């Protein structure tokens, strides 16, 4: 991996925003996450908080007395990064039931995309997705890598109540609603797992940089996994990847 030309911007009273080139790219994401990790290692001050997105990293300090000094400190950390080092991410298999009782918009997409249901499901579940970000709602994953053939604009009028676990397509993104919420994505299935649980530490098992793939399950399997999840017996299929 190479190093990028970064922009450092003062943001509000106590934060510094670091920006990468404005494109969605796995190498940029990995570069951001590597930098984040190094900052966490080297700036051990309490109450310094970091968050990342597609092409930026935000660092919030308890107080900034001299922005220039902070930027110099960050630049030095970036320069010292060993970009050859392999990064390790988890790859998660997430079960999804694409039954029509869950996939309330599958038939609409079938017509709108002129692709049959089976093909939509197969294109959706065949791919590996990269987690670029978690936000919008606690535990909502921003997944990149949706097959071009099944991309579809969001609904003009968002629905008020999308059920928990709904798997949807919104533009070039796909994702799972971690809890019931309003939303404008087209729903094609439902996952019985919990993506967010405030009683667990960390509350979401996935972190940015991880990979996710969807495994098509039947209604029967869905019911079984749901029971396993509720009784905390469900074990994820997880592998480790350097990719």
């Amino acid at each position, binding site marked *: 991996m190479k190093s990028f030309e970064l922009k450092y911007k003062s943001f*509000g009273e106590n934060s510094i925003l670091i920006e990468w080139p404005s494109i969605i790219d796995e190498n940029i994401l990995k570069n951001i996450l590597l930098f984040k990790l190094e900052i966490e290692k080297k700036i051990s001050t309490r109450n310094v908080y970091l968050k990342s997105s597609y092409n*930026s990293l935000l660092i919030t300090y308890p107080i900034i007395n001299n922005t220039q000094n902070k930027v110099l400190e960050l630049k030095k950390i970036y320069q010292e990064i060993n970009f050859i080092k392999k990064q390790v991410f988890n790859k998660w298999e997430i079960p999804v039931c694409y039954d029509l009782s869950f996939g309330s918009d599958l038939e609409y997409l079938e017509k709108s995309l002129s692709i049959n249901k089976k093909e939509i499901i197969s294109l959706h579940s065949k791919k590996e997705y990269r987690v670029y970000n978690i*936000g919008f709602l606690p535990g909502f994953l921003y997944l990149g890598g949706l097959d071009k053939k099944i991309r579809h604009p969001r609904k003009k009028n968002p629905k008020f109540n999308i059920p928990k676990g709904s798997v949807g397509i919104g533009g070039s993104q796909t994702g799972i609603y971690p809890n019931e919420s309003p939303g404008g994505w087209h729903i094609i299935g439902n996952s019985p797992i919990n993506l967010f649980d405030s009683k667990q530490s960390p509350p979401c098992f996935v972190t940015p940089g991880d990979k996710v793939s969807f495994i098509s399950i039947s209604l029967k399997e869905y019911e079984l996994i749901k029971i396993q999840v509720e009784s905390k017996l469900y074990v994820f299929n997880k592998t480790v990847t350097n990719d």
Partner: protein
Amino acid sequence: MIEVLKSGFYSTIQDLGRFGFENYGVPISGSMDQFSSIISNKLLGNKDNDAVMEITMTGPVLKFLETTKISITGADISPSINNNPVKLNIVHNINKGDFLSFGKLKYGIRSYLSVSGGFLTKEVMGSKSMYPNITKSFRIADGEYLKIKALNKININPEITQIDYLKHFKTNKIKVFKGPEFDELSDKQKHNIFNKNFTISNDNNRMAFQLNETFINQLKPIITSLVMQGTVQLTPSGKLIILMRDNQTCGGYPRVLQLNESAINKLSQKHMNNEIKFELINALK
């Protein structure tokens, strides 16, 4: 213990927020007007971060089932103890069986009730601040019982008697820094944003305040990026949205301004149709 006879329009328990989980999509939350919530805690000798009740517009009716001391700060919603009007910003002794109720809203919109030692609702992920799907409930309900700390000796902080409380409510100036996409605005937009008055729309809550006025917006959306409490976004429809304490952690609209902490506190006391004016902070540090 406090019995909630009526919960009011929108009452929640808040401390100063839930930190360290934003990368899981969890907002920081915390009391909207932290200037006022901190004073209410300081009056009682509590820690700044002790949990308080945030009361919005219409107050609750509460019955105290034990002796304690309380203070009420922030908006004036005409509080009474056993139907006798009481002052804001001082300590009141509460006896077992006393009732606290509220009346007419006189100024501000959010009032803070502190009890000696703080509310002892359950802490989740390092904070007692209520938020959907994090805490058991996201607002206080009728008939609920709230645990409070047993009354202790009080050390009143003398310096807080010097504060000019009303100044916090009178100003319409909202101090801001330039946001990351500010420079992409046209010269005319840059001029207008600091010279026009804006009004708060009815779309205002703990997540965000939308303003009524419309800008002609030619800015492109950005790739989902990072926002904070107090970030001002320019939406595709040309409306400004100011993110508040329960804000989403990321967003795709251009971030044109950023409020400072004190401006977030002041804005938290504004309501529908109130006028505000952005004032640029010349910050080079």
